[in-house]
């Protein structure tokens, strides 16, 4: 019997099991033999895909670029075949306390909180934004990392929440979080109505995608993914868990900021 179409995902939360255990019978009922493997970190998932252990990887934006670069070294190519509607056009923000710095330049010499060291949204992209505005991390300001679950590329929002709380109590002068968490932290009370404000906002970027390497036929998987409808009660709970209303065809136009960040801040290559 041929191997089922094998997906790799990183287990950043127990719900990841629920999600893929839910999708597995759905794909199979639609005629695609499907299975999944879970990894504890994206770097191992990148290596597993390069080794042909998995056919498609549900990759963070950083893992996508790690794959693109590692594949290139091997003379191969990677494609982003699909992504969530919620993966497109994100921004991150730099928060300060009310009465704190009133411009990016005033962050010089300050303590700035970021998320996990490998978080594109809460660390790499905001630090790039500040660097391109003339403030070099580590030299012009102190970077305070909130390393929750390293290797998971910031998928867990714990690091951002820690940074926001540290800003509120005065342990930080600024904190970097994704726009959706600005809304979420206001709603759940982490960020009080008054007391913090948005000092800077990055340009738009894209987040996760399903990555496939050359030589792998993922057409049926893509077709089925794009056919999922939020109105369908069978898949809606899974889409809710995964945080989307619809899957969209993959695009690679939203990774330019992270590319520049990787060029600037070294140490994220997967050999």
């Amino acid at each position, binding site marked *: 019997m041929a191997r089922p179409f094998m997906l790799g995902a990183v287990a950043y939360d127990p719900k990841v099991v629920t999600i893929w255990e839910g999708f597995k019978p759905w794909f199979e009922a639609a005629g695609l033999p499907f299975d999944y493997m879970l990894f504890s970190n994206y770097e191992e998932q990148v290596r597993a895909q390069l080794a042909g252990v998995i056919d498609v990887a549900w990759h963070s934006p950083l893992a996508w670029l790690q794959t693109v670069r590692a594949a290139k070294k091997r003379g191969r190519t990677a494609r982003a075949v699909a992504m969530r509607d919620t993966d497109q056009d994100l*921004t991150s923000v730099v928060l300060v306390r009310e009465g704190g710095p009133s411009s990016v330049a005033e962050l010089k010499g300050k303590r700035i909180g970021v998320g996990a060291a490998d978080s594109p949204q809460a660390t790499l992209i905001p630090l790039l934004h500040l660097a391109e505005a003339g403030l070099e991390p580590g030299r012009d300001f102190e970077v305070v990392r909130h390393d929750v679950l390293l290797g998971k590329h910031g998928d867990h929002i714990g690091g951002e929440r820690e940074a926001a709380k540290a800003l509120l109590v005065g342990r930080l002068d600024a904190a970097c979080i994704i*726009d959706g968490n600005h*809304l979420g932290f206001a709603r759940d009370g982490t960020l009080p109505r008054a007391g913090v404000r*948005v000092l800077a906002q990055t340009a738009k970027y894209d987040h996760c995608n399903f990555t496939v390497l050359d030589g792998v036929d993922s057409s049926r998987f893509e077709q089925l993914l794009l056919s999922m409808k*939020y109105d369908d*009660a069978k898949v809606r709970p899974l889409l809710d868990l995964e945080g989307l*209303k619809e899957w969209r065809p993959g695009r690679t136009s939203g990774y330019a900021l992270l590319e520049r960040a990787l060029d600037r801040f070294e140490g994220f290559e997967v050999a």
Partner: protein
Amino acid sequence: MSTSASADLGGLSLGGGGHLLLRRALTKVEPGERVTVTNGNETLHVDLPAWCRAEGHVLRGNEVEKGTANRWAGAERAGTASTPSADAPPTWGLAARGARVEAGGPHFSYPLHERHEVWSDDAARLYAQAAAAQWDPAKAIPWSETPKLEAEVEDAVVQVMTYLVENETAALQVPAAFVARLHPHFREVMQLLAVQAADEARHIEVFTRRALLVRSEPGLSTAGGQASLKTLLDEPDFALASCLLSVLGEGSFLSLLQFLRENAPDAVTREVTKLAAQDEARHVAFGLSHLQRHASHDASLRGRLASAVEQRHRALAHTAGLNAEVFDALVLLAAGSWEPAAIAAGFRRVQALERDMHEGRAMRLERLGFPRAEAERLASLHTRNFM
């Protein structure tokens, strides 16, 4: 598509309540139509794109184009609020009767989901009556009037109370077990069974308290008595369990509690048995009314009820039935003393009680549609343990 509505956020942030105003405006337009957002707070430029993304809407400038994702596609009402449906599907789950239930929810496993198995048109009235008749054990009983009985008469009261406690424990556990198996769509029945269990909780409390009012320990619990009660707990069928417990068992207990009230040697015993009897009368009424309704929908029910009575009789044939200690205690309690003439009178009263119980069972079985002779026969097969 053109703008067809607007949402004035009144300076609120989307994370601080503004989303209600925006969502309200969006409910008034169709998917693809737009709502213009005005008067947001200073973080709207951060929050609005994030909100639209999460909600599945498209942001075009300061206009929100309503998305097509619809959580309520395929939703259905859990019947109608006023009238229970003939069959309640597992997907309605815990929803209020008549509520609109989102599709894709969990499937609940409620074995009792058909109206004809559980419903009584009396349920709402009996529940309301029960809720209004809840008495406070601390205040309703004259606990300060400590009985001063002959030592052996006190022992007899303690033995009867001990027996009542274990019977009422079974009478609590049987409806409690069915509450969890009953589809909540039949709300009134669920409420009635719950309050029935709560009634028994109070009975257990007051009978225990009377048993320990003078003595420090309760009396005897027999193997035969427990075997009889266990057959009630082991009966998985709601109709059969209701017939055995409520119609026959609690029906017999109505006579017993009436007997205890009339023959009580002290005020506390009189009051606890009087109040318990009022509650038990409701339990019997519900048992009768839902079984009458069930029998009118299902011609095979009476045959199954008769088999259940016979089967329980066979299962208990090897047991001692009512323990001698309880029987003798009832005689002594009714006698009030060891005078032979009093004992003789007490004995006659207990015999009359047994005839009264039998007659009550036969009469209730007739009300369930059994012919007189069959009702008499089944009534005589009822457990000698009364409950």
